[in-house]
């Protein structure tokens, strides 16, 4: 009857096990959608071993998991990164379990690592179980009830102001992130618009007689701070290219990083 418990119980792994091969394909047929992460998948696989989680064969489990990942790969199932991380770790663990222990005593032994994985699975399963039990308890508003008609008291009217912590936090978070969502231009008022540069250079170049440096076309106001200047140069250069395209000006540069020169075509001759 409890929705939560039911959902937990209908975890897709109650299927009886026949032999390893059948089991493998059976598990592999289940789509990843049903799992909540690699540990959940491992727990599901561990259940198919039908032994106490403390006596589980971690080596077998690792093989089962790696086979799953291989199969998913063959089927071009997209596996989330955590599944792949777990696969890499299990592959490492498997090799450690199969190979003789290294000389270096500093590292944790393969057995310790395997025991930790078994511990994690056992702990997750314990939490699953109590979660289901919790949901199946007699719950307020479903099995147990409060006074249906709390008695209205009308004598002395005082106002009690309430606010909850989530409201408080939410309000603060909203204030503190408001600026993050501001439209970009608010922050970029120092950008010299290309349109403005276009008008400016078209006007000036039309009047200028010979070659002038591009920098000479920068507006006075935009020569102050480095980033203002940078913006003005970039916009003016973009504008000059546009004017070249239109056939109104010519530009030249005598070498890499050399000054850029510009003259109006009408004036040049």
């Amino acid at each position: 009857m409890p929705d939560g418990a039911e959902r937990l119980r209908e975890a897709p792994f109650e299927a009886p096990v026949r032999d390893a091969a059948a089991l493998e394909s059976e598990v592999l047929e289940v789509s990843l959608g049903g799992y909540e992460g690699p540990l959940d998948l491992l727990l599901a696989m561990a259940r198919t071993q039908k032994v106490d989680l403390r006596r589980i064969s971690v080596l077998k489990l690792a093989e089962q998991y790696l086979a799953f990942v291989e199969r998913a790969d063959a089927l071009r199932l997209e596996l989330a990164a955590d599944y792949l991380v777990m696969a890499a770790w299990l592959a490492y663990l498997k090799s450690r379990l199969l190979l003789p222990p290294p000389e270096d005593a500093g590292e944790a032994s393969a057995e310790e690592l395997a025991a930790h994985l078994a511990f994690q699975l056992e702990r997750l399963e314990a939490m699953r179980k109590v979660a289901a039990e919790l949901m199946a308890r007699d719950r307020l508003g479903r099995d147990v009830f409060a006074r249906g008609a709390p008695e209205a008291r009308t004598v002395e009217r005082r106002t009690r102001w309430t606010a909850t912590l989530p409201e408080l936090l939410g309000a603060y978070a909203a204030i503190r992130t408001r600026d993050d969502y501001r439209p970009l231009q608010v922050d970029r008022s120092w950008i010299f618009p290309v349109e403005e540069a276009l008008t400016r250079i078209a006007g000036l170049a039309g009047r200028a007689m010979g070659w002038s440096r591009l920098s000479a076309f920068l507006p006075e106001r935009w020569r102050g701070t480095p980033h203002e200047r940078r913006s003005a140069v970039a916009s003016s250069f973009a504008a000059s290219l546009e004017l070249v395209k239109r056939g109104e000006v010519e530009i030249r540069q005598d070498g890499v990083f050399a000054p850029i020169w510009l003259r109006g075509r009408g004036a040049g001759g």
Partner: protein
Amino acid sequence: MSGGSGTAGAQQALFDAPPLPEQERMAEAILFASAEPMTTAQIEARLPKGSDARAALERLETRYEGRGVQLRRIGNAWAFRTAPDLGFLMHSEAEDTKKLSRAAIETLAIVAYHQPVTRAEIEEIRGVSVSRGTLDTLLELGWIRFGRRRDTPGRPVTFVTTEAFLDHFGLSSARDLPGLSEFRAAGLLDNRHIPGAKSEEGDEDETEDMFDEQEAQAAAPDAHHG
């Protein structure tokens, strides 16, 4: 709910009806949880078949005689009511609960996170002016109080939160207030991708640090950026 088969109707009904003390318990629970007074018929309809609601209710009425709560007949219906002689105990609970206004919650949150904070700073952070009434409400509630004056020109008064504030929000200290990434983690914040977020353009000085800004603000409360 009862899993009996339908064959032996009358017998079944007799068999189903629990003993009278149990019926009394049932009527007690039903009436307690009901938002409205209930008639004998309504209660009987909720009891197992074959129950005698009238008898159960009369037993219940006797049981509650002289208690702090009594079973009362209201017209042809029944309801639990506080004993009339104890009405005086109910007086102090006559309160309306009202939600704090958005302005008040925001102001409170800013005080909590930035304390000690001046009114000018609160306005700077909220981006709107803070009305006298908002601060008054919070002061009256006992959730904020005046702190030390700031050692800056004008010596503005600051606001800080109180014990009562920690109490109401179930916090053990103002340091226990969660940070922004914890809001996000808890889903209290929209995790929209933030447009224009500047990340590693290290040499740019375009990123205004809120706190520098506030310090500047505190030092010269009149300074404003056009």
